[in-house]
């Protein structure tokens, strides 16, 4: 080997070794922090959330690490599109984090042994202070398998008052029914340019899967599976109406044919590419942080329903829970952090709800009082809408496996795009749901859950 080649190879190896030393062999672990020495390490994984939420997570981790000297919390942000595979790979390798944040129902994860029950880890008084709606989404068979951070409605209507005014609509009167929505879209279409739309809703299977659960219940009075989970129940003419609603919006060009961004993002609305959007209450938090000019002219209302009745099943409610992995290496230390952050001084948790523009409901009464007393609450009129007009009329997220949500999401998308008639789309969904019921033995699972 020539001397120069040898030197180059040696330099490359040294660089590679240096780079490797910057990282760590443990997934999710950052470079060694001297402050971690001698402490019990706790791995904590979260998603990318809205700007104020991300800032809050970073702050509490820093504060917790500074507040005591026994535990060192290592927080890692995992992007949503990599979440499932990263967590699954870590579970397979036995390196799952001690604590992670989970949206959606916990039932399947609790039933299949992925989560550690928290009743013996956390103080009974702390668990007793959890509000009823938050309990509903955090328990399985009467035991806590996650500690709720918040509950929030997942489907509300946002409208841009300025654009309403430009289109000759009353800026203080958002639509409440499907018919009124058609009228509003027709008027707004005249003021929207190329690549802009009166409304942004779900247009893909996944987003339809979780955003339309309440609408399915509202129009038909039931979900697309029997209560004992033994038979599919998707072939209902009322569901055809729901598909036709989205198909009309699509055929008229009032909603885009392709998603304008992530299903849980308010970006297109913030960029004024759309005049209205369906979005969870967290949308206001994103608008307030990233699009303050648009936030100041934004109104929030319950999402439109077929009959304009906004007093039942207008949205699902749920969201972020902190869960402890069933194989957590440091469950006690993890529980101490949960107790400190979510169950301790309400002042630690309070800023989370204030900074997210009062769009999320605290999961503990004590925290709700502190948040409600914040002077800034008076400047957040949408908060009243969320908590008084939306939250009381919500239903919990569906408990059945996600594949069933997806089957209905597929039906909505196929019918909306006109690939098949609504009846044919629902017939396919019916077969798909029945296949899942039989394959997974859902009737037995339901009986086990109810036991």
């Amino acid at each position: 080997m020539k001397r120069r080649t040898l030197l180059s190879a040696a330099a490359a190896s040294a660089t590679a070794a240096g780079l490797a030393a910057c990282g760590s062999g443990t997934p999710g672990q950052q470079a060694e922090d001297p402050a971690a020495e001698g402490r019990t390490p706790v791995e904590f994984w979260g998603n990318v959330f809205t700007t104020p939420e991300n800032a809050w997570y970073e702050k509490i981790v820093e504060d917790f690490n500074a507040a005591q000297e026994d535990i060192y919390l290592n927080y890692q942000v995992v992007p949503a599109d990599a979440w499932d595979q990263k967590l699954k790979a870590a579970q397979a390798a036995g390196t799952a984090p001690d604590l992670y944040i989970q949206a959606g129902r916990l039932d399947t994860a609790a039933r299949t042994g992925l989560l550690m029950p928290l009743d013996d880890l956390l103080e009974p008084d702390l668990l007793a202070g959890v509000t009823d709606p938050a309990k509903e989404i955090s328990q399985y068979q009467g035991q806590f398998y996650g500690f709720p951070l918040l509950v929030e409605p997942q489907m509300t209507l946002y409208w841009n008052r300025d654009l309403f005014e430009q289109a000759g609509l009353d800026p203080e009167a958002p639509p409440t029914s499907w018919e009124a929505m058609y009228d509003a879209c027709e008027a707004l279409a005249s003021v929207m340019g190329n690549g802009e739309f009166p409304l942004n809703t779900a247009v893909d299977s996944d987003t339809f899967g979780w955003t339309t659960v309440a609408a399915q219940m509202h129009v038909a009075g039931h979900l697309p599976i029997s209560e004992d989970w033994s038979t599919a129940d998707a072939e209902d003419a009322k569901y055809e109406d729901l598909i036709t609603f989205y198909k009309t919006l699509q055929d008229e060009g009032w909603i885009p044919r392709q998603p304008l961004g992530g299903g849980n993002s308010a970006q297109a609305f913030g960029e004024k590419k759309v005049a209205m959007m369906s979005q969870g209450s967290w949308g206001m938090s994103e608008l307030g942080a990233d699009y303050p000019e648009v936030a100041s002219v934004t109104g929030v209302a319950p999402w439109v329903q077929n009959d304009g009745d906004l007093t039942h099943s207008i949205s699902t409610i749920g969201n972020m829970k902190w869960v402890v992995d069933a194989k957590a290496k440091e469950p006690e230390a993890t529980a101490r952090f949960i107790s400190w952050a979510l169950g301790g001084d309400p002042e630690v948790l309070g800023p989370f709800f204030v900074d997210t523009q009062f769009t999320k409901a605290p999961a503990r009464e004590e925290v709700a009082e502190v948040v409600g007393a914040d002077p800034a609450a008076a400047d957040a009129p949408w908060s009243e809408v969320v908590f008084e007009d939306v939250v009381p009329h919500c239903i919990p997220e569906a408990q059945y496996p996600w594949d069933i949500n997806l089957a209905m999401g597929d039906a909505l998308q196929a019918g909306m795009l006109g690939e098949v008639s609504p009846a044919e789309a629902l017939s396919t969904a019916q077969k798909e749901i029945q296949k899942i019921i039989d394959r997974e033995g859902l009737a037995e699972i339901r009986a086990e859950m109810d036991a």
Partner: protein
Amino acid sequence: MAISAPAASRRRVHPSRRQDTSMAYIMLAPVLILLSIFVLWPAIQAVYLSFFDWSFYTDSEFVGWKNFHDVLVDDKFWDAVLRGLQFVLMTVPVSMVLSFLVASLATSVSRRVSTVLKVSIYIPSVISGVIASITFVIIYDYSGGLLNALINIVGVPNQAWLGDPRWALAAIAVPAVWLGLGISTLIMIAAMLDIPDSFYEAAQLEGANWWQRTVYITIPQMKNVLLFLLVTGFVGSIQQFELPLVMTGGGPHGATELPNLFIFNHFRGDAYVGYSLAAALLLFVVLGTISSVIFRIVNSEKLVD
């Protein structure tokens, strides 16, 4: 004995030959050991575990052939395989023809132009598939994308390239062809340069034109290389994964859910892993069968100088 004598002489190996064989085994050992650890043993494990409802957290339950049965009766699995074949038809022939044309051009122009051509065509091969996917997502963006801006110029309204089931698979095929063009073109150039010039000189003396020289000399002489590219292109194309994962997630309405993505979506979504393993093994059988059929139809043969 009359029979045993020649048999014994066949077994007798020259000492230097034996040394060569030992050296060959030593040279092969690292790759064989690595393949055994990372391919063979996981494959055996996969076959074993596919008969279980396997979870990482609870005791596995033996379920016999249930997982294979679930896959075989699942229309979505077969739809994904058919979609994969459709994707192969969209990408492999286009890629082969384009590579052949570029390779023909590169071998007939001056050396400097040929170098520029080879470098330009090879650049996409060193770009990460994820980066290419993100780039094309931006190009296909519904509101503000480059492609829609271009078609707007000629009066055509915005199209949902990734949101319309009619377009989505083709929209993913474009970057797939672009990314694969470099390697296949370079292999074809190498094969073309390997054809003796005397063949072409003789043909030119007989008055053969470019088309005749291509059909009667170039393509027959490249038969083995074309077969290789056909089979590797087929397997690579039907196993395409990252493009649909990043660009569409398999949507709209499953229009881009290719077989590997179908399996992956089950892997990350299912409570148990048995279904994904069974689907992967069955896909292996399907791909192996189709590849062997291609080999049978297009026989490879040794070139005769």
